[in-house]
């Protein structure tokens, strides 16, 4: 099987939201000795961008986006050991520490952001839910994060986003701080000195744009 055939198989698997087919195609790519970076960048990421565009145009539902992202993630997991073995590093757009703030256990939106970021070339450290401020800070220092992303669904818990903003300033961390979640408004983000994205797609766009400017 040619590389092109494997790439087109993996693209159609992601676009058909088919986890099993995506995993199978990823395995096949390794069997024929393909460069896993190429599989990710020219296959998986490309397919996901197309799905993202269709979602934005209203041609696909949210569950399609989530399912495509899931297929992409599972395929990437298959490729990861080979990346490590070959001592290859994906060209990482940026390192993101993400979590839902302390007192809040809502995960869906945050996980969707994490998945889409991963699929779009970010290295993502998902701390889960009910994450204390110190844990965000500690992890960001540890991995030398470029971005801290904090989600809050409840008006009561969004106050923690403000605490986190203060902690970032106090620690003097050189990171982009982005907030999201149902309780968050652009005004709130501005008030606490954070970036804001209304949904997963715009979070990916905004961070990609900001980080590319940073790199210049």
């Amino acid at each position: 099987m040619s590389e092109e055939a494997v790439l087109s198989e993996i693209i159609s698997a992601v676009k058909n939201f088919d986890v099993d087919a995506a995993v199978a195609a990823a395995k096949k790519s390794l069997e024929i000795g393909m460069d896993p970076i190429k599989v990710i960048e020219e296959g998986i990421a490309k397919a996901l961008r197309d799905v993202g565009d269709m979602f934005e145009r209203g041609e696909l539902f949210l569950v399609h986006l989530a399912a495509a992202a899931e297929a992409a993630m599972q395929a990437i997991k298959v490729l990861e050991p080979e990346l490590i073995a070959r001592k290859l590093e994906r060209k990482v757009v940026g390192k993101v520490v993400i979590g839902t703030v302390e007192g809040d256990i809502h995960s869906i939106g945050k996980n969707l952001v994490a998945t889409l970021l991963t699929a779009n070339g970010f290295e993502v450290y998902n701390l889960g839910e009910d994450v204390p401020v110190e844990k965000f800070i500690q992890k960001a220092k540890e991995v030398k994060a470029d971005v801290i992303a904090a989600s809050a669904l409840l008006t009561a818990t969004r106050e923690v986003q403000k605490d986190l903003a203060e902690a970032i300033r106090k620690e003097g961390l050189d990171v982009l701080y982005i907030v999201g979640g149902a309780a968050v408004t652009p005004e709130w983000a501005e008030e606490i000195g954070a970036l804001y994205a209304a949904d997963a797609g715009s979070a990916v766009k905004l961070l990609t744009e900001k980080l590319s400017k940073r790199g210049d």
Partner: protein
Amino acid sequence: MEVSVQFERKLKPLEILSRDDLYNIHASTLEILEKMGAKVYSDQALSILEEAGADVDRKERVARIPQHLVEEALKKHRRVVRLCGRNPKYDVSLDGRHVTCATDGTGLWAYDLDTGERRPSTKEDVAKSALIVDALEGVGAYYPLVTSLDCPVHAHVVHEYEAAVNNTEKHFISGDTYLVEEARFLIRMASTVVGGLDELRRRPIISAVACMMSPLILPPDQTDAALEFAKHGIPIVAMTMPLVGSTGPITVAGSTLIGNAQILALNTVIQLKYPGAPVIYSSYTLSMDPKTGAFSVAFPEATMVMAGHIQLARYYEMPNFAGGTISSSKVPDEQAAYEKALCGLMSMLAGGDVCGTIGLLENYTVLSYEQLVIDYEMYTMMLKMIEGIEVNDETLALDAIYQVGWEGNFLANKHTLRHVEESWVPIVADASSYETWKSKGAKTVVERAKEKVKEILRTHKPAPLDEDIRNELNEIVAEGEKKIPKKAAKAVAH
């Protein structure tokens, strides 16, 4: 969710009237028709009834109809009535199991899409509203919402049909064909479109309303027009419009009874002359505001009479066309929204076969393009509801529940992917966050509906008629202007 011109009802209709209630109303109807009789202004109808054995008083024009004639007629009408489109993919089968949606009217005013002004309706309004109906997947029939007041008014029927048939491939219901002459012209036009009268009988692409008068009158011209349509196998929408407390009794049961008597009287005349004729049971009851005497289609008493009529129609195994998204509000406002939602849902839950009145305000008299799209959206919501709840292994999603477990979510689950296309999706309703809504211009539903209407008018292209058919129709319209009696104009402002 896939919506087409007909949709299968799975939810059992509400039983508003018990079996005993239905029997009681039916028996009372038979008694009225036999004892008091109906006033019959059509000579032809009087003769038909007299020949069949009714007790006819020619001087009073009253026909006292023996019970057995009414009962026998109820055995003859077509059980399944087809509303065919000029494109067969839009055929609707009214069989008690499927529902569809239709516009109705026929109003005299329209809110101008560009200026927002409430102005007399025009032929272009007929054309534009037909085009929108053609684009809205779930609407199964076009009934001119308004008439073409910019054309010679006595010839409005032929002008309405010309504007409609050029802009929609769906079934056409004529609302105000009051004279035999109008009926003949309309039949000629429809047979030109399908290629002859035999083909029209086989595939009736038009149907026509025959509106009775309350309390108990079969009017002259409408009854004769109905017989003319029946002769050609064209479905008759037998319509009753009692005004609860004025031309009908003030009680819901009483107005239900009087409306039922009108429809059974007309059905008897039609079935005596043309056994097996397709008849649709139609109720457009109105309520009176007891304080002012003003009337409204959307007061709960009127809605309940219509619900009763819907159930009676089902009892007689006759397709029904009643109620729908009705309102007496002047503008597409909150009153329009709650009246339309509550009354529309009630008629659908009661077992309505055709959800009508999308796009009209002020009791069937004013077209609002925006309201047309909003009401259509309400109809699609009702469709989702009358699907009921399907319960089986697949819908219970046990496998998915075990796969997802205590935490996580169903977003990317295969079960979700299998069923997500069944989801109801809004057309104009907005579920986004305040921020997103604000950033998109903080538009009301009416503003969003206006955008949708403009998009449809810009992009939707129904298949055109052949040029020679178009020309022939145009000639018939010109001839109609000359030959249809001027008195047809009188009926327009009924």
